């Protein structure tokens, strides 16, 4: 077969077009996930239930998790918007409690407490609690915030009307209004990652393994072992929200 230059370019062009289209389709996988189709065909939404563990005794307050989260999820960089943050607690000899979280702990805690009489000090990472009874989901007037069958609370950005009722209803301060998109935003447990078998950004970068994540339905998962082996507490249990973020080594001063 002989092709002249024009015919060759025509055929080559078609190939490029098809290749490009395939690439677009691939990029649209995320869209497919939103439309209810699983991102990963091997991911079985029904056999998963996500839980998250935080070992307070391990956290060193380096703030890498906060930084990684902001980068991974395009969280606005200003110090008013956090999907995760780290709080520092210092207990003085006289029982006084000092708490701070400058820039959500993103830059670490380089300054030291000036007070010498510190008897106890620890760091507490916080994220959305992905509650079993989420008050934010209950109050959303249009159902834009919802819980997935595998136990993650998400926000549909195309549906949220920006009334901020969910922000008021969250007892943990886990939500903010995205200043550019004007919709509620919060930790998604890196849903786009965990459903592909990857770890959430904050878990991935933690240098001391203070954060772990896993399937609560799997008896051999890391999270299940973490829950079974340790004394576990959750934040504000009296509110009945039933958080799925589990803390090990939680002091009474932590709210």
């Amino acid at each position, binding site marked *: 077969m002989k092709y002249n230059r024009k015919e060759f370019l025509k055929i080559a062009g078609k190939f490029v077009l098809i290749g490009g289209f395939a690439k677009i389709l691939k990029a649209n996988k995320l869209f497919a996930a939103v439309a209810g189709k699983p991102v990963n065909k091997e991911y079985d939404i029904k056999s998963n239930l996500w839980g998250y563990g935080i070992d307070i005794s391990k956290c060193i307050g380096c703030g890498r998790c906060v930084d990684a989260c902001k980068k991974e999820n395009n969280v606005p960089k200003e110090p008013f918007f956090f999907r995760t943050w780290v709080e520092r607690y210092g207990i003085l000899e006289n029982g006084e409690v000092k708490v701070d979280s400058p820039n959500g702990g993103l830059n670490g805690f380089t300054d030291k407490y000036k007070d010498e009489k510190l008897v106890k000090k620890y760091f507490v990472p916080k994220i959305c609690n992905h509650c079993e009874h989420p008050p934010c989901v209950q109050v959303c007037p249009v159902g834009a915030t919802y819980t997935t069958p595998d136990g993650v609370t998400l926000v549909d950005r195309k549906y949220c009307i920006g009334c901020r009722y969910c*922000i008021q209803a969250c007892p*943990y301060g886990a939500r903010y209004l995205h200043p550019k998109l004007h919709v509620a935003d919060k930790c998604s447990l890196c849903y786009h990652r965990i459903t592909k078998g990857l770890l959430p950004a904050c878990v991935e970068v933690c240098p001391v393994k203070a954060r772990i994540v896993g399937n609560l339905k799997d008896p051999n998962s890391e999270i299940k072992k973490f829950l079974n082996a340790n004394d576990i507490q959750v934040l504000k249990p009296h509110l009945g929200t039933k958080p799925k973020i589990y803390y090990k080594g939680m002091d009474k001063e932590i709210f």
Partner: protein
Amino acid sequence: MDEIIRVLFEYLGKVQGFIYPNEIELHWSILIVLYPFITGLVAGAFILASLERVFNVKEVKPTYRLALLTALAFLLIAPMPLNIHLGHPERALEILFTPHLSSAMAIFGFVYIWYLMVVLVVEIWLDYRKDIVILAQSEKGIKKYIYQAMALWSYNISPEALELDDKIGKFVTIIGVPSAFLLHGYVGFIFGSIKANPWWSSPLMPVIFIFSAMVSGIALVMLIYMIVSWLRKVVIDMNCLDTIGRYLLYAFIIDFSLETLDLIHRFYESNEAFGALAMLMSGKLHISLLIVQIALGTLVPITLLSIIQLIKVKPEIRKPMYFSAGMLTLIGIFAMRWNVVIGGQLFSKSFRGFTTYKLELIGKEGLMTAAALIILPVIILAVLIYLFPPFAKETGE
């Protein structure tokens, strides 16, 4: 976006103690203060109107139509501050089309439409039908067609037809009273049902909202009646004014008792949030709660209204007393809405610190917008009074 960031950096410098980093932004601004304030005026004005219709308090008849028109004027504006406040106002109708039924906010759309269309518009229409028909037959030009359309091209004003109007009207008012309670009690529930916020979370909230609504609505109609009478240069019916003043006092005493009960309960229980709330009351809300709401906006008007009940005061002195009491009441109830909405967001849910709120003069959620939203219903009311003169009956014009 830059504007909000600039404001937030300003707030950041004013944070007291520790708050969660996402809590620096105060989410519900003065517009959300206006929302319960305006809806309260609607519910209160309607309840005053129903005093005459349902409970046969004939003395307040001169204000019956005025109260209904006031309720309508303010109700038309009630959803506006909410819509302006939304991050995506273009999606506002989703609340009606795809409501999430477990959300207290989602139900507002339906309560609102029920109240506006089924109660208020029908009641006003029935009450004015005779006037509209007469106007449709006597007016000329475009006004004639407007009134004809309003009469729905049905001009039967025989005594039998009017009697039927009156019967249906009374029935609508009877439905209207619980509807007014529902409208504003429900607004109270929006706040009272938020367990995350100890300043809001209280089963008393809807009840307090209902009674404070009655107080503000009655005070508003009383003031409008006085002002309109002065503008029209007609004599104020002192019997009517005294009766309104009496009912205002009754509603106020119940309202104040409930609020005091709520406060005592908080002090006595002293739960985990009490430290933060006590600091809130004595600190950030010192002026707006203790001085404006409780002292100036509650105790002074209650005292003024009580004096009139206890000793004989001349009508020339009673009038300015009623006027001052009415004005102070409105200021006090506005302060109450402010203290609930803004106050409930000033403290951190960690109970360890406070953020701040500065009311900007201009901007989407500034003072000018708020002022416009308060003036707008007054203009609408003036138009409504022009279209549907509420005074025809008693002056026989």
